[in-house]
C-alpha cells in the first residue's frame, strides 16, 4: 500500500521531470545573460518612466543598444552607474530633474461652468475642454496625485498640486495624465533653455520683459522673505540683475495690471533690492553649472549681450571665451553709463560673478585685426557669438560739426569713463533726447558746466526715462525744446564759440501718427557755447567684419546691423550667432541680455543636436486677451518712493550714486502689492459676493 503510493508518486514525478528536462533542452530559447544582470540592477519599480514596458523591457533595450545606461529615471545616478558597470560603459552624471507645475491660478481662476461629474481631470477636460476659463489652467481634480507612484504630489490648499522635488523621480506619469499640459519635467538646463510660449502661464509683465524673467515668482519669493531664491529666479534669465536694477527702463511696468488700479508694482526696485541684498552679503550665491561638455565657444564683445551669452553657455557646461577690444569688460555698461547711475565697483562685482564660473577673457584685442573667425576655428572654437554693440555716434548734421569742441555722446561718456581729463568749458549744449543725452548732460553738470539740453521735439516725445528727465532738471539742466542746430560757429583758434539753431513747431502727424517737427522760417538764433555734445542715436561699427578683400561674409542690413533669424539669432554663417545692439540697433540693456540668452540656447542646440529647435507657439508679442483695461476687487495701495542717496551740492559736484534702494519693510510692502498674475487670473480682495459664491460651491 505505502510502497505502491510512493512508487506512483515518484513515477509520476520522474516522468514529469524527464519531460520537462527534455523540453528545457529542446525548447531552449537562448537569452543574453546580461539582460538578467541588468534587470537585477534596475530598481524593479516597473513605473514605465523610461518608456519601456517595465524593468524587463528596459533591460532588453539596454542590452540591445536601444537605450543608454541612464535609461532608468527612477533610479537616478546610482542605478546608471551599476548598469554601466555591467555593460562596460561610462555614464555621465545625470542632471537632476523634477516635475514642475506652471499654472498659478487654482481657485482664483474663473470657471465657465459648475462641474459635478467624475473626479478626474481627464473626464472634465472632455466637457468643453474643462471648467477653467484659461486654456492652460490647472483643473485641480488631482489626477496627477492619483497616478504618481512615488507619492511626490499632493493637492495644496488652493486647488493646485504641490510637488515635492525630493520625492519626485521624474518618471513623467503626471505629465502624461494631465490633459491641460500644466505639468512638465524640468531640470536646470530646460529652465535655462526655455523660450516663452503662448501656452505658458505668462503674466503681462512676463510677456513684456525682453529678458523673459519670471517676475511674479521672484516677487512672491520676496514676499516670503526668500531673497536668495528670488536672486536665483532672476539669474535663470538675467545674470546682470545689479545692473538692470539700476538702469533698466522697466517695460514690464507699462503692462502691470496694478497700473489699472493705482500705480504699477515697482518691479525693478524689488529686483535691485534682492540684488543689493546679495551684494551686501559679500559673496556671490553659488550658481549650479552642468557638467563639462568640452566645447569651446568664442564670444566677440564683452557688453551685456556677450556677458549674458557667456554666462548661460557656462551654466550649460560649455567653455566660452570673451574677446573684447577695450581694457575692461562691460561695453556700454562701463563706458556708456556714468558712475552716478551705475558705479564701476557694482559692475565689477557682477562681472566677477559671471567670470568666476569659469569664463575666459581676452582683452585689448580687436576683431578682424588681432583675430578672425578662421584663426579662432584653428584654435578649436566650434561656435561664435558676435555682440560688438553700437559704438558709432550719430552725426550732428549741422554745418561745421567737425570743429574742435564737438564730441559725440558715447565718445564723451567713454572718455570720461576711461578717466581722460576733458576741458568742456563753462557752457555745454547737449543735442538729443535719449538716455545717452541725459547721461551726458548730468555728467557735464558734475564737471562744473552750465548745461542746456536741446531737443527738436517736446518733452512728451523724449525717449529717455521720465525719472531721468526729472532728475536732470533737478540737477540744474535747462531744456530747449523744439530746437535744432543748424551751424557751428568757431573762433579764431578753430574752437567752438557759438551755435546757430532754428526754432521748430510740430506739424501734421505722419503715417506713424507722430507729429513731425517743422522748422519755423526766419527763427535763426545764436547761443554762446564752449562745448557741444551731439547724442543723436548710435550705430554699430561693422567695419571689423570685413576681411582683407573688403568682403563681409555675414549678411548685413542697411542700418549697419547684422541680419539674423529673429528667434534663433543664427546668421548667414551657420556657426555664427549674434545679439544685442549689433543685431537690433540701439536698444535696451535687458534686450541685449535676453538676446544673449537666446543665442546661448541656439548655440547649445547647434552644438549638441545639430539643428535648433524652435517651439511652434513661441510668444512674440503681447497676448491680447490677457491685457485688462480694468481690474476688479483690488484696493489701492501706495507705491514705494525711490529713495535718493545724494542731495543738494553733493549730488551735482560728485559722481556718487544718486538713486538708492528700498528698505526691507518697503520691499515687503511693495511685494504685497503684486497681484501674482497668471495668464488671466490675479489676486482679488475678498468681498461678500465672492465669499458667498465660495460657500455655495462647498469650498
Amino acid at each position, binding site marked *: 500500500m505505502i510502497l*505502491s*503510493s510512493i512508487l*506512483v*508518486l515518484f513515477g*509520476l*514525478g520522474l516522468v*514529469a*521531470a524527464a*519531460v*520537462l528536462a527534455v*523540453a*528545457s533542452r*529542446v*525548447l*531552449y*530559447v537562448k537569452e543574453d545573460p546580461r539582460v538578467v544582470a541588468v534587470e537585477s540592477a534596475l530598481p524593479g519599480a516597473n513605473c514605465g518612466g523610461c518608456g519601456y514596458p517595465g524593468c524587463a523591457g528596459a533591460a532588453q533595450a539596454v542590452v540591445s543598444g536601444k537605450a543608454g545606461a541612464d535609461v532608468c529615471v527612477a533610479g537616478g545616478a546610482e542605478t546608471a552607474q551599476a548598469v554601466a558597470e555591467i555593460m562596460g560603459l561610462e555614464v555621465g552624471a545625470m542632471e537632476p530633474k523634477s516635475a514642475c507645475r506652471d499654472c498659478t491660478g487654482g481657485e482664483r481662476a474663473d470657471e465657465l461652468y459648475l462641474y459635478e461629474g*467624475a*473626479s*478626474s481631470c481627464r*473626464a472634465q477636460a472632455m466637457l468643453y475642454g474643462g471648467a477653467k476659463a484659461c486654456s492652460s489652467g490647472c483643473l485641480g481634480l488631482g489626477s496627477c496625485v*492619483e497616478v504618481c507612484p512615488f507619492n511626490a504630489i499632493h493637492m495644496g490648499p488652493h486647488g493646485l498640486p504641490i510637488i515635492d522635488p525630493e520625492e519626485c523621480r521624474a518618471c513623467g506619469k503626471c505629465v502624461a495624465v494631465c490633459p491641460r499640459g500644466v505639468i512638465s519635467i524640468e531640470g536646470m538646463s530646460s529652465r535655462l533653455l526655455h523660450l516663452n510660449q503662448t501656452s505658458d502661464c505668462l503674466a503681462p509683465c512676463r510677456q513684456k520683459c525682453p529678458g523673459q524673467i519670471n517676475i511674479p515668482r521672484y516677487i512672491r519669493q520676496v514676499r516670503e522673505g526668500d531673497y536668495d531664491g528670488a536672486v536665483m529666479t532672476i539669474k535663470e534669465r538675467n545674470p546682470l540683475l545689479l545692473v538692470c536694477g539700476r538702469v533698466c527702463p522697466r517695460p514690464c511696468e507699462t503692462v502691470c495690471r496694478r497700473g489699472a488700479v493705482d500705480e504699477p508694482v515697482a518691479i525693478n526696485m524689488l529686483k535691485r533690492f534682492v540684488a543689493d541684498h546679495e551684494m551686501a552679503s559679500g559673496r556671490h550665491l553659488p550658481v549650479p553649472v552642468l557638467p563639462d561638455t568640452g566645447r569651446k565657444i568664442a564670444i566677440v564683445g564683452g557688453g551685456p549681450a556677450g556677458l549674458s551669452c557667456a554666462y548661460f553657455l557656462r551654466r550649460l557646461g560649455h567653455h566660452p571665451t570673451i574677446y573684447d577690444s577695450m581694457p575692461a569688460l562691460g561695453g556700454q555698461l562701463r563706458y556708456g553709463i556714468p558712475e552716478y547711475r551705475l558705479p564701476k565697483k557694482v559692475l565689477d562685482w557682477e562681472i566677477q560673478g559671471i567670470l568666476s564660473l569659469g569664463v575666459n577673457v581676452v582683452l585689448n584685442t580687436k576683431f578682424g585685426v588681432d583675430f578672425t573667425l578662421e584663426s579662432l576655428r584653428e584654435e578649436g572654437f566650434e561656435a561664435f557669438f558676435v555682440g560688438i554693440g553700437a559704438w558709432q555716434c550719430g552725426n550732428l548734421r549741422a554745418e561745421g560739426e567737425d570743429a574742435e569742441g564737438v564730441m559725440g555722446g558715447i565718445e564723451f561718456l567713454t572718455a570720461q569713463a576711461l578717466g581722460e581729463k576733458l576741458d568742456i568749458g563753462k557752457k555745454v549744449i547737449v543735442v538729443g533726447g535719449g538716455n545717452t543725452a541725459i547721461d551726458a548732460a548730468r555728467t557735464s553738470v558734475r564737471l562744473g558746466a552750465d548745461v542746456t539740453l536741446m531737443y527738436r521735439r517736446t518733452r512728451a516725445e523724449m525717449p529717455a526715462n521720465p525719472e531721468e528727465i526729472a532728475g536732470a532738471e533737478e540737477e540744474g539742466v535747462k531744456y530747449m525744446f523744439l530746437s535744432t542746430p543748424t551751424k557751428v560757429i568757431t573762433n579764431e583758434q578753430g574752437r567752438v564759440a557759438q551755435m546757430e539753431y532754428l526754432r521748430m513747431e510740430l506739424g501734421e502727424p505722419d503715417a506713424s501718427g507722430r507729429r513731425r517737427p517743422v522748422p519755423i522760417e526766419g527763427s535763426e538764433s545764436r547761443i554762446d557755447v564752449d562745448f557741444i555734445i551731439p547724442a543723436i542715436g548710435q550705430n554699430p561699427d561693422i567695419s571689423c567684419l570685413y576681411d582683407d578683400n573688403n568682403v563681409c561674409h555675414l549678411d548685413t542690413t542697411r542700418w549697419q546691423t547684422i541680419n539674423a533669424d529673429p528667434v534663433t539669432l543664427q546668421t548667414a554663417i551657420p556657426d555664427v550667432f549674434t545679439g544685442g545692439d549689433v543685431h537690433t540697433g540701439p536698444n535696451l540693456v535687458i534686450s541685449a541680455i535676453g538676446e544673449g540668452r537666446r543665442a546661448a540656447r541656439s548655440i547649445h542646440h547647434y552644438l549638441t543636436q545639430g539643428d535648433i529647435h524652435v517651439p511652434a507657439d513661441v510668444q512674440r508679442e503681447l497676448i491680447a486677451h490677457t491685457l485688462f483695461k480694468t481690474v476688479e476687487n483690488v484696493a489701492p495701495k501706495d507705491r514705494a518712493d525711490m529713495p535718493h542717496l545724494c542731495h543738494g551740492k553733493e549730488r551735482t559736484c560728485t559722481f556718487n550714486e544718486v538713486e538708492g534702494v528700498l528698505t526691507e519693510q518697503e520691499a515687503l510692502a511693495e511685494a504685497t502689492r503684486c497681484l501674482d498674475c497668471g495668464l488671466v487670473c490675479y489676486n482679488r480682495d475678498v468681498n461678500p459676493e465672492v465669499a458667498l459664491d465660495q460657500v455655495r460651491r462647498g469650498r
Partner: protein
Amino acid sequence: MQEYFLLFIAAIFVNNIVLAQYLGNCPFIGTSKKTGVALGMGSAVVFVVTMSTAFTWLVQKYVLDPLDLGYLQTLTFILVIAALVQFVEMFLKKMVPPLYQSLGIFLPLITTNCAVMGIAIICQRKEYDFVTSILFALFSGLGFMLALVVLASIREKLEVTRMPRSIRGVPAGLIMAGIMSLAFFAFQGMIA
C-alpha cells in the same frame, strides 16, 4: 446536445467558478484593474484549465484508478498541473513567441491557481467522461474570464469616482465581487 448546452449554462452562470464557488479569487482581485489585463489573464486560464483537466482526467483514469490510489488525487494533480504549465510556458516561448509575449506573463500566476485545481477535482467528483470534462473545463474557464472582465470594467469606472480613500483599490474590488456574486445567485434554480 441539450446536455452540453445545460452544461454551458451551468458552468458559466449557475456555478460560476469564481462567483458561485469562490475559487481563484487571488488573481480575480489582483488582475482585474485593467480590462486588457483581465482579457489576457482570462484567455490564459481558459487555455490552461482545459489542458490540465484533460491530462488530469487521463491520469486519474489510467494510473490512479487501476492501482486503487484515489487518496493521491490532490498530490498527483498538483504535480501534473505544475509540470504542464511549465511545459506550456517553454513551448510557447520557443514555438509561438507572439502568444508568449501577450500571455506568458500570466502563466506563472496560474501554476498555483486554485480554480484550475478545483475544476479538475469537480470533474472527478461528478464522474464526467472525457469529452464532458473537457467541455466543462472550457466553459468554466470562460465563466472565469467573464467574471474577470466584468469586474475589471467596474473597477475602471470606480477609479474615477469620488470614494473614501480607505475603500479604494482592493476593498472596493472585494465589495464589487460580493455584489456580483449576489447578482449571479439569480441564476440559481435555472437547473435543478
